[in-house]
């Protein structure tokens, strides 16, 4: 019933925006020193009775929470783009090899104790893998879309095998790399947020520009081409945009699955399939979902932080199955 009432995009945007704000305030209050929403707001506006609260919020929690939202939004935007490009409801931000590349980059950085931090190495690895998959696919006889999927799957598996091999040979970095691969936001600060802000918005803007071509692709490449769409350019733009958004998130948070897969589906059930509507709603939903998952990840076994990817799957999975069961035209 709620889902039916939210049909209009503007009211959905408003509803999700307010929910996200409330979520942010609650999330800022959660931690070793619990704060009430009122205390959070006072600290945010530098109006708190205790300066230590301001320090907690401004120096520790705010950057992390904003980063969580940015990553959730970026991964969801990327999911929308890849699902649209591949016309495949199972596509996610890592479908063209970004996860395998990121994992290998991060592992190499850990194994060789390189001067490049794991995040940056993961970012570069993700982009390199996507570039390789893209160039193989464009020169293939199979039709670029099928070739992209196949090359992405093959390369991901190959790179994961190399990562496994490296980790077995160099056991001492195993925990460090594994924790990074599972994804999480422990200890993330303003510098990480600045890093992500350098790249993620660019990717998101590129995806945003491609919403109409994505609509045209819904009926297949031939049909889009008959409308005068340049397929090669479109594929390139979508892959660049989505990969930048994905890699930006990977660089600061590791590999977080599931958000980018399900946020677009939930968005479609709320506001329909037109990409100009699906995209912003997906981004808000992704931010919200990741915020929630991060909240669980850092509180359930505090002070130990659990991998956030575990909770995106545990929270998103059941909801996704619920939507499927209701037969609400997810796809």
């Amino acid at each position: 019933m709620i889902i039916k009432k939210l049909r209009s995009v503007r009211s959905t945007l408003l509803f999700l925006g307010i929910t996200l704000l409330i979520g942010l305030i609650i999330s800022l209050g959660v931690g070793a020193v619990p704060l009430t929403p009122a205390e959070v707001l006072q600290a945010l506006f530098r109006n708190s009775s205790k300066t230590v609260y301001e320090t907690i919020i401004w120096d520790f929690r705010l950057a992390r929470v904003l980063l969580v939202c940015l990553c959730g939004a970026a991964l969801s935007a990327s999911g929308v783009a890849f699902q649209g490009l591949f016309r495949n409801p199972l596509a996610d931000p890592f479908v063209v090899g970004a996860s395998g590349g990121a994992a290998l980059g991060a592992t190499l950085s850990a194994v060789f104790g390189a001067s490049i931090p794991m995040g940056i190495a993961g970012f570069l690895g993700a982009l390199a893998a996507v570039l390789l998959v893209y160039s193989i696919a464009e020169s293939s006889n199979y039709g670029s879309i099928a070739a992209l999927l196949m090359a992405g799957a093959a390369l991901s598996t190959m790179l994961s095998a190399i990562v496994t091999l490296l980790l077995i040979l160099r056991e001492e970095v195993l925990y460090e790399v594994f924790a990074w691969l599972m994804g999480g936001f422990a200890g993330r600060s303003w510098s990480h947020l600045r890093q992500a802000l350098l790249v993620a918005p660019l990717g998101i803007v590129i995806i945003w520009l491609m919403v109409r071509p994505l609509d045209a692709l819904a009926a297949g490449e031939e049909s889009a081409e008959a409308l005068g769409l340049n397929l090669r350019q479109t594929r390139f733009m979508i892959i660049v945009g989505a990969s930048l958004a994905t890699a930006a998130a990977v660089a600061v948070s590791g590999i977080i699955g599931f958000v980018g897969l399900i946020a677009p589906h939930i968005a479609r059930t709320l506001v329909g399939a037109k990409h100009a509507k699906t995209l912003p709603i997906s981004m808000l939903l992704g931010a919200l979902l990741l915020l929630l998952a991060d909240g669980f990840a850092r509180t359930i076994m505090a002070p130990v932080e659990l991998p956030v990817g575990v909770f995106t799957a545990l929270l998103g999975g059941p909801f996704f199955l619920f939507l499927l069961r209701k037969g609400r035209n997810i796809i």
Partner: protein
Amino acid sequence: MKILRTDQLDLGYNGKMVVKGLHMSIHQGEMVGLIGPNGAGKTTVLRALAGLLKPRNGQVYYQKQSISSLRAQDRARNISLVPQREAFVWPLLVEDIVQLGRAPHRGWFLPFSSSDVSVVNRVLHLTGLSRLRKRSINKLSGGEFQRVMIARALAQEPEVLLLDEPTSNLDIHHQIHVFDLVRKLVDEKHMSVVVAIHDLALAARYCDRLVLLHKGKQCAVGTPEEVLTSENLQTVFGVRASLYRDPLGYWALSVKQTEPVND
């Protein structure tokens, strides 16, 4: 006036040659039917006419220009194709889909203007879809779906409309409905139409001229009467049949016997 013309066209995919030496022309305001058995190359010819398949040899000319020299966007303003068997992976709304037909005019990034909206409204009205505009494409019947695809093509405001088996999975009522609509576009708007079509009786009834394809070669061109001779029907389709006027004055086909299929 010849609006679309091909010049000794050879067409193929990868290693395989599908159509050889096609020499056809379409005049403004006429409806041409592409007929022929399965695998004769009808879809391939349409793709080439739409500029989606690069010819091995020869050229397709739109008016005086080679179609391969046109920008994709300019091509789509003049020629629109309704491909066969389209399937939407996401449940877009009817009006969103029809609006995409304006992309060749408005581009892929600028917002649609009020003139785009009025074109969309007009074609929705013309195709009888006004009431269904907010309906999801996945909730339409076969006939409604086909009308949406035609409406999208019309929103391109093309000179030439190419249709690939537009009625192949429709019942007789919707077949007639769709073809009446297309014929009206030809008669009233002087649109030029090329339609690949399986049903020979429908082809004879609606088309001004027919092009008969057989094994990738064009083996007859002309009015339905000239093309659908008993001889052609026997050699190309392997049936003993003849064309006659039914009591209402439409062309119809009576099939007496099929020959054994031999390849």
